């Protein structure tokens, strides 16, 4: 009893000490940490701001310059050197639509086929399959002008010898975006868990039945997203088209195999922008606005598609 009472103050002291230590641990971080945190967050925000400011400046500038030229003429009328106030993008729009239709025709079966081979059939322990994989990654990073040269050498001339026709441009763009489609499709296929394939095979389905009825349906949203993004890239490409014959001044509606030349939206914008006259500058800006709206719509649709329909496992 005596001893207990004597130690009581000391105990109280010890308890108070322990409590203040705990309080100190829970209190604010040191000032240095707080400042470093704030500075870092600020820098990150700045990076985002710079990226957005670029896009915003482009939109505002295009709108300021191009709003005067925004009218239905833009879509319905062919270009004209003599009457810029009446000139439009009609052949370029029709050309671009045909180009991307051709891109899709080529890229959907070939891209999905290649992805299916690599994901479902190829034995990745074989060196040639690994080589193919690495090269597809590399191809996605090859500058588009190289594809233009390839298209010129092998599609326009060379083995295919198609000439400077729209279909040749389409094929060139398709080759350019094919790696994107393959990579996106592979990711979509890989997202389908193996347990689904095993479940299907264990019921006596063949590998092809399993792919057709289970794996592909489950990965279609992801594949479609990849195809849309690839097509929007193809839509905006200019450099390879200049090499494979998208002649800059076409006043008639192009056809896939017509030998009189064809044009595309970005090429026509480029052409208008090169002209010094105020009216053509406005036309170029208006064309940029149209392209921006279309590309943003396509990309938003791709994102929506992925979020809405992607299978969650």
């Amino acid at each position, binding site marked *: 009893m005596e001893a207990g009472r004597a130690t009581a103050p000391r105990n109280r002291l010890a308890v108070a000490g322990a409590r203040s230590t705990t309080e100190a641990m829970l209190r604010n971080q040191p000032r240095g940490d707080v400042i470093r945190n704030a500075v870092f967050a600020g820098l990150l925000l700045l990076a985002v701001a710079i990226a957005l400011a670029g896009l915003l400046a482009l939109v505002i500038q295009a709108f300021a310059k191009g709003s005067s030229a925004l009218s239905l003429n833009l879509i319905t009328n062919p270009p004209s050197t003599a009457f810029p106030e009446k000139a439009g993008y009609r052949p370029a729009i029709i050309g671009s639509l045909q180009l991307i239709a051709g891109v899709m025709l080529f890229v959907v079966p070939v891209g999905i086929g290649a992805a299916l081979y690599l994901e479902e059939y190829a034995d990745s322990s074989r060196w040639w399959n690994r080589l193919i994989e690495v090269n597809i990654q590399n191809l996605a990073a090859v500058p588009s002008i190289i594809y233009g040269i390839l298209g010129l050498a092998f599609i326009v001339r060379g083995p295919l010898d198609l000439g400077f026709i729209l279909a040749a441009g389409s094929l060139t763009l398709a080759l350019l975006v094919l790696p994107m489609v393959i990579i996106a499709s592979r990711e979509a296929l890989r997202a389908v868990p193996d347990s*689904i394939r095993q*479940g299907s*095979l*264990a*019921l006596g*389905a*063949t590998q092809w*039945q399993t792919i057709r009825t*289970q794996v592909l349906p489950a990965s279609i949203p992801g594949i479609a997203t990849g195809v849309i993004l690839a097509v929007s890239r193809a839509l905006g490409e200019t450099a390879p088209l200049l090499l494979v014959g998208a002649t800059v001044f076409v006043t008639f509606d192009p056809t896939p195999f017509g030998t009189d030349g064809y044009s595309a939206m970005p090429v026509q914008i480029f052409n208008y922008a090169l002209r010094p006259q105020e009216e053509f500058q406005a036309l170029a800006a208006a064309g940029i606005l149209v392209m921006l709206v279309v590309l943003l719509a396509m990309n938003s649709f791709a994102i929506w598609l992925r979020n809405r329909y992607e299978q969650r496992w």
Partner: protein
Amino acid sequence: MVVVLKEQTPKISVRPEFQQAAAPQIKEKVFELNGIEVLYGGVSAVKDISMEIGHKEVTALIGPSGCGKSTLLRCLNRMNDLIPTAEVQGELLYHGEDLYGPNVDPVQVRKLIGMVFQKPNPFPKSIYDNVAFGPRVLGRKDGLDETVEKALRGAALWDEVKDRLKDNAFGLSGGQQQRLCIARCIAVEPDVILMDEPCSALDPISTGKIEDLMIELKEQYSIVIVTHNMQQAARVSDRTAFLMVELDAEEHNRWGRLVEYDATEKVFTNPSDKRTEDYVSGKVG
């Protein structure tokens, strides 16, 4: 370290009438394994497995994890063919036919020998389409509705889902999903059903339902079940095989080996191997 007590009574209870029963002979064999060895990339996972599996019986494979139970089970419907590095050696007869013979198509094998996996793996489709999937890929499109209903009844799931056959199977509980997978399996009218730890992801009530189901199903099907739950093996199986990991002299390589295979009541009440006794009495695991 394994401490072995003398005269240890096993903790698993078995119905008294089984206590002294002699192991009944297998009347009709569905599988006959002679010296089966499975290798992954040239390294043995199980070795020297010789056993006969009875028709319309429930056979349990038990043993510590990694001893090759799943590997052995996957041999029986040639699912190991899907693993590029896997290689099966030895003789495996199915109703007297060599299952690995040159003219045997693994796809045909899997139509006759179905499989239920550890984790329920319903397809991302409606309940109906899940069950109808097997018959459809086999081209059995007539009377599909009846087939689906029969399979769902067979898997004791019909009453719970009959009003929402068009709903996505992912909306079912884990236990219902597993019974759906069993329904999906019996919809193709197999001869054998293989189950790899079918209850390990389920709660006790769902587990009980599936165990009851297995006892019902063995009227029509031969069942081979892998389980790490010894009570479950004791409750549902007629015969139990106990596998264990064995090390070579240098302790470099390890593989699974069949230690004891007998009538379940014998394995759990009067095992002939000390290692089985230690395992079933819970001393090692």
